[in-house]
Structures are given as C-alpha cells and as structure tokens.
C-alpha cells in the first residue's frame, strides 16, 4: 500500500542483536513485508463463549460477506537470538495474527517469514516440524491449552521425549523443568484442574521450554491472570531471559538454577504496555494491522513518537491516587479491519490528525534516535 520499504526494522534488529551476542549475524526470526488477508468471517467475531452449547454446524463463517479482513498489512519485524520483542495493541490490531503467522499457524498472503535464516513462508508441514520444535508457543488461556486428563508430568514428558531425552533421565528432566518455572516436584502428579491459574501458566511455559526452543512465542500469556500472579509470571519470564532459574527459596539469596542452555528469544504479545515494558527489550506498537512505532522499550515508553503509543501509555492506570483517573485519550474502538480508513489508519481517532493524514498513509521511517515511527506529525522528543 505505502510502497515504502520498511527495512529499517531489520537493521534495528540486527544492531540490537550485534550488541547482544557475537554470533547473531542473522536475525532468529524475521518477518518481512508480511500481509495476511482473509475473507471476513464469523469465525472472528462470531459465536464464542456466551453459553454456546450449539451444534457446531451453526457457527461457521458466512459466505455472504466477501469483504477482506486486513489482519496484517506489510509488517516487518526481526528478533535477534536471545532478544525479546513485545507487540502491543488493542484487540483486533493483528498482534495475534502476527504471532500465529510467525509460527506458520496462519499463512502469509504476501511477504516472507524466515527462521534461523531459512525461508519458511511456504515450507511444508514436514519441513516445519523441526522448526516448530525450536519455536514454541505459550497461549493466553493455560486452562484451554493443557490436556485436562493428563497429569503435568505426562504433559511435559511428551515434548521431552521428542527432544530426545532418554527414558531413564526423563523424570530428572521433568523435575528440572518444573524447578525452572518455579514449580515443585510433586506438581508432576497433578492434573491441570488441581493447579491455580498461575501454576497452569507455569506448566504451559515449562512445556514450551521442554523442546529447548530458541524462540518463545507468547500470546497474551498473562492477561487472563490476577495482577499478583501476573507479576509472578512476568518475573519468571525475566528470569528465563537472563538464563537463570527462578529464585529457589523465597528470599534466601537468589540461587541461580542449573546452568541452562542460552536463554530463548521471546515474541511477547499483549495489550498492556506496562507489562510489555517489564518483559521486553524492544517494543512494536500495532494499530489495525500495521506497525505504527517500534524501538527500544524504554525509549518508546518514555517518549512515544506516535500519538497512538501515547494514548496506550495514558490508558495504563497510574497506581497513584493523586494522579486521578487515567486520561481517556482514545475514545471509541478501532474501526473495522475489513475497511481500514484511508491515509493514516489512526487518523479518525487521532488528536493531531491533519488533512494530510486523511489523504496519505505515513510510511514507517527511522527517526533521528534510531527507532521507527509512522506518523506525519510525530510527537517531540520530550513529552
């Protein structure tokens, strides 16, 4: 659409990677100019939850609408080994499609997906199998993603066996894995329903780690959890990122876990900017299928360049009674992705929008400080 190359992101990724590790010449995961379009269907906004014990044939997509949902439009991201990239945006901004596209659960309409340098955009199911072991997903709802009839130990044994752990060492490995996510040996014998939400999510993470992945794809892993449990999981992710196990005793000195393999890179998707900032090195902000801003986490949060980023920041509740209620900078909800507004997609909700914004789509361009923003009237360096 814009026709503007959005390659700066790749360089930014490469630069961060170079700073991190010497062996990181090529990004671990690289999506370039990826678009995902699919026919508008009830599968997205249709029946889900809400007491639907309906026969499944009732709820499928309607073929009436031939409109196309622009779930992702010309999106490029790159993640260096060991790096963590956060994707933030409201429901329907395409962040989940992005993560599913990276895992090849959704096929890109155009553009390419590369993992460890190899193009997997059109890779066959068979060819993907080894790739998927090195890139593991953690889902939002641990309850739905764990087999309710399997004890935790068995849930973890399956991927461990696939990863080539001999039967004799299986139990030790399971215990080590549980310890790494802050669970005890006896949790091996528990069924998912006997665990709390936070513990289930720990199991979900352990299962992903069992394959010794180089990349963790985390799709809203904490948004279904209580704030106190959310903090525990966020801390766990921070520990994983630093290659340490969790603290063993409560506060008996941070005893690092066994020297594990190099920490996996993370692609972390969430709607809460504060959580993403706590977990990630870099942040990409998405709006209606496009990246509107990306850069180092602190920079993006301290001095947002895009008005949408600032609005997201304003929505995060301040834990300070003197600050009053959060400013509502964003009224309404994002328009439909079937018919994105012309020009800048954010302009109908943007306080800074001009006539130019309605006409011309701003390209995602590098700024002086190195990060990328797609805005005709970016915010100044200081806010």
């Amino acid at each position, binding site marked *: 659409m814009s026709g503007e190359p959005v390659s700066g992101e790749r360089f930014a990724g490469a630069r961060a990677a170079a700073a991190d590790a010497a062996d990181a010449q090529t990004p671990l995961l690289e999506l370039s100019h990826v678009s995902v379009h699919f026919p508008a269907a009830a599968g997205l906004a249709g029946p889900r939850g809400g007491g639907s014990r309906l026969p499944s044939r009732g709820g499928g997509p309607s073929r009436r609408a031939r409109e196309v949902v622009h779930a992702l439009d010309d999106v490029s991201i790159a993640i260096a080994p060991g790096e963590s990239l956060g994707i933030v945006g409201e429901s329907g901004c395409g962040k989940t499609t992005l993560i599913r596209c990276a895992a090849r659960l959704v096929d890109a309409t155009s553009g390419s997906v590369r993992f460890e340098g190899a193009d997997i955009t059109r890779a066959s199911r068979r060819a993907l199998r080894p790739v998927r072991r090195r890139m593991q997903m953690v889902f939002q709802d641990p309850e739905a993603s764990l087999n309710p009839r399997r004890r935790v130990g068995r849930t973890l044994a399956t991927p461990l066996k696939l990863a080539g752990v001999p039967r004799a060492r299986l139990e030790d490995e399971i215990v080590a894995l549980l310890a790494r996510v802050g669970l005890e040996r006896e949790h091996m014998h528990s069924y998912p329903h006997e665990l709390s939400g936070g513990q289930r999510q720990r199991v979900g993470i352990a299962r992903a780690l069992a394959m010794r992945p180089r990349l963790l794809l985390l799709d809203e892993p904490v948004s279904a959890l209580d704030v*106190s449990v959310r903090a525990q999981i966020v801390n766990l992710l921070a520990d994983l990122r630093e290659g340490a196990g969790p603290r063993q005793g409560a506060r008996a000195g941070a005893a690092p876990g066994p020297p594990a393999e190099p920490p996996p890179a993370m692609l972390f998707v969430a709607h809460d900017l504060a959580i993403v900032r706590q977990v990630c090195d870099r942040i990409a902000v998405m709006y209606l299928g496009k990246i509107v801003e990306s850069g180092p986490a602190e920079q993006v949060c301290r001095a947002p360049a895009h008005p949408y980023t600032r609005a997201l920041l304003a929505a995060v509740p*301040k*834990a*300070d009674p003197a600050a009053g209620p959060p400013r509502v900078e964003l009224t309404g909800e994002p328009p439909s992705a079937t018919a994105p507004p012309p020009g800048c997609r954010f302009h109908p909700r943007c306080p800074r929008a001009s006539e130019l914004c309605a006409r011309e789509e701003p390209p995602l361009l590098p700024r002086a400080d190195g990060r990328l923003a797609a805005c005709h009237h970016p915010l100044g360096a200081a806010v």
Partner: protein
Amino acid sequence: MGAGARVAAGRPAPEAGAAQPGAGTLLDVRDLRVGFHGGARGVVRAVDGVSFSLRRGEALAIVGESGSGKSAMALSLSGLTCEAGADVQGAVEFEGVDLLAAGERRLRRVRGAGIATVFQDPMSALNPVQRIGAQIAEQVLAHEPLSKAAAAARAVQALRAAGVPEPERRARSYPHELSGGLRQRAMIAMALSCSPRLLVADEPTTALDVTVQAQILAELARLRAETGMAVILVTHDLGVVAGFADRVLVMYCGQIVEQGSVSEIFEDPQHPYTWGLLGSIARMEGERPRRLPAIDGVPPSPARPPAGCRFHPRCPHAMPACKAPVELRDRVGGGRLDRCVLEVERKRALRTRSGAIGL
C-alpha cells in the same frame, strides 16, 4: 468452624471504619459469612466475618486475588449467592433494612432498583438470544409501571447515558454483534436504568483491553458524579483503584486484612499483603525494576485457611506471633484498620523496595 467464631474480630469495624454512622450510611455489613457446600470438604467459608459500611455516594474498592472471597462477598449483598446454593449469615443493612432477613419480594424490589450489579465478563453476562434493548427494558418494567414502549425508550436513553454511540440501533442489536467495550457499556446502561443508589461492579474491566478499561472506568466515575450513587468496585488490580475509589478494603482468604482511604492504602499500607499487591503492579513511571516486588506462592484454599494471620505462610516478614489469631483493628490511628502485628515503624522500614512499596 470454631476458628471462624473466634475471629469475629470484624465486629467493631463499622463503628471504627465509617466516619459518621447514621444518616449518611447507605449500607452496613456486619459479620458477613458466606459458605459454599464443597462436597467432601464440607462447607467452604468463602467469606469469613466481614464487616464494613458504606456512605451514600461513596466509592469503595474491594481488592483481592481469586479465591479471596471478594466476589462472593459483593454478590451476597443482594442475595445473589444464596441462589447458587450458598449459606449466607450475618447482616446486610441497606437503607435500614436487613436484606438477608428480607423476603424474596422485598429483595427483588431492591435488586436492580436499589442495588444494581455489573458482572465481570460482558460476553457471558448478557443473554445471547435477546436484543440489548429488550434486556434493559425488562429490568425497567420489573420496577416501574411503564408501558412497553416507554420502557424501550428508557433503554435507549440508558444506553445513550452510558456512552453507547447510536443507542437506537444498538438497542436492537444482539450481544454478539457488539464489541467487548460496548457490551460492558450496555451492562452499565442496564445497571443504571433504574437509578440505583448502589452499583456493585464485579471486576468490570478485567476482560477488557487496557484502553477500553480506561474508558469504562472514566465512564463509571462520570456516572457516579452525575447520579450520586455509591459504587463498590471489586477488582484484583490495585492499579485501577487509585484513580477511582475513596476507600479500599483489601481481602485475603475470606477476611479483610486492611481497610483505609485510598491515599492511606497507597502511601502508607500496613499489611504486607497490600505491599505485595502494590508491588505486583507493572508501572510506567520510574525505573524499570529487574523483578517486580510481588508475592510468592499461591493463596491458601479457603477450605483450609492457615491458623493465625492467614497470610503468614507467604509473608517474608512472618514471625511466631503471626501464628496466633490477629485482630482487625486500628493500629495507626485515624480510623483505618489492619490485621498485621508488626510495629508501624518497622513496617515503614520493611516495605520499601528500591524506592517503591513492595513485598
């Protein structure tokens, strides 16, 4: 349960907690106990001796984790847990009438008109096969002698008041045709359609995006200011409380562990559990800490609450005295209550973690 009877320390709470009991009091809860039949484990006491009162127009936040009993407590106020098979004891006096002793008819008149309730998940809290407008009108018709047309008009009006764009069209929509944010606005419209004196909002923003959460909270604050109704906001997130509530009640394992004004809770929290909740919030302001100073472990089962201070097994500052029952009482002065035996000065020293409050 013998322990439950002994820890009736909540009793003096209303006198100490409410600034001026009497004329301004809307709701007075005394020693509320809610038990659920938990199969083989006998009765699970989800709420164990909670007392507090609420002034007209006041905004009270009830904060706690899943299983703290906060929702069971809030829903018991209008008898909603009784029908789910709960055993509710104590007294809930609303405008001078004890609702727990009141008959079904009386209770029905209060529900919707006196105390309105907004539930957590707007996806499942609206009947999927009825139009939004009809669901609101049904409540209006239950409380006011209006014609169907007049009730339908009231529904549209309520939607407009709750900030729903194109209210006439939305009244004819089914819930699944609306986004999460609009559905929650519709729930709020329904709750406010009969001008209640008290709105109980049970985790109204938990299922929503941060941006929509901000909108819904702002909307609730505006509506409260316009109508003068009192609000009880039930949440697990102390962060959303700061800009909204006047007073905060922190619950843990079926009991109140701390109660105070919102600034007292945020600036001078007395109970280590409250510190942990504050430390759990990922903040935008300030330096990013390497780890959040949060709470370790998992909440105890209300079926088998720990003896003494129920938080002591997870508390890094626990000491032998914590194993004995701890009263909820004023330890700082100024009418605030807490359930921690540490000395006030010691608490102030212990709770600061790299410049912020945390556990």
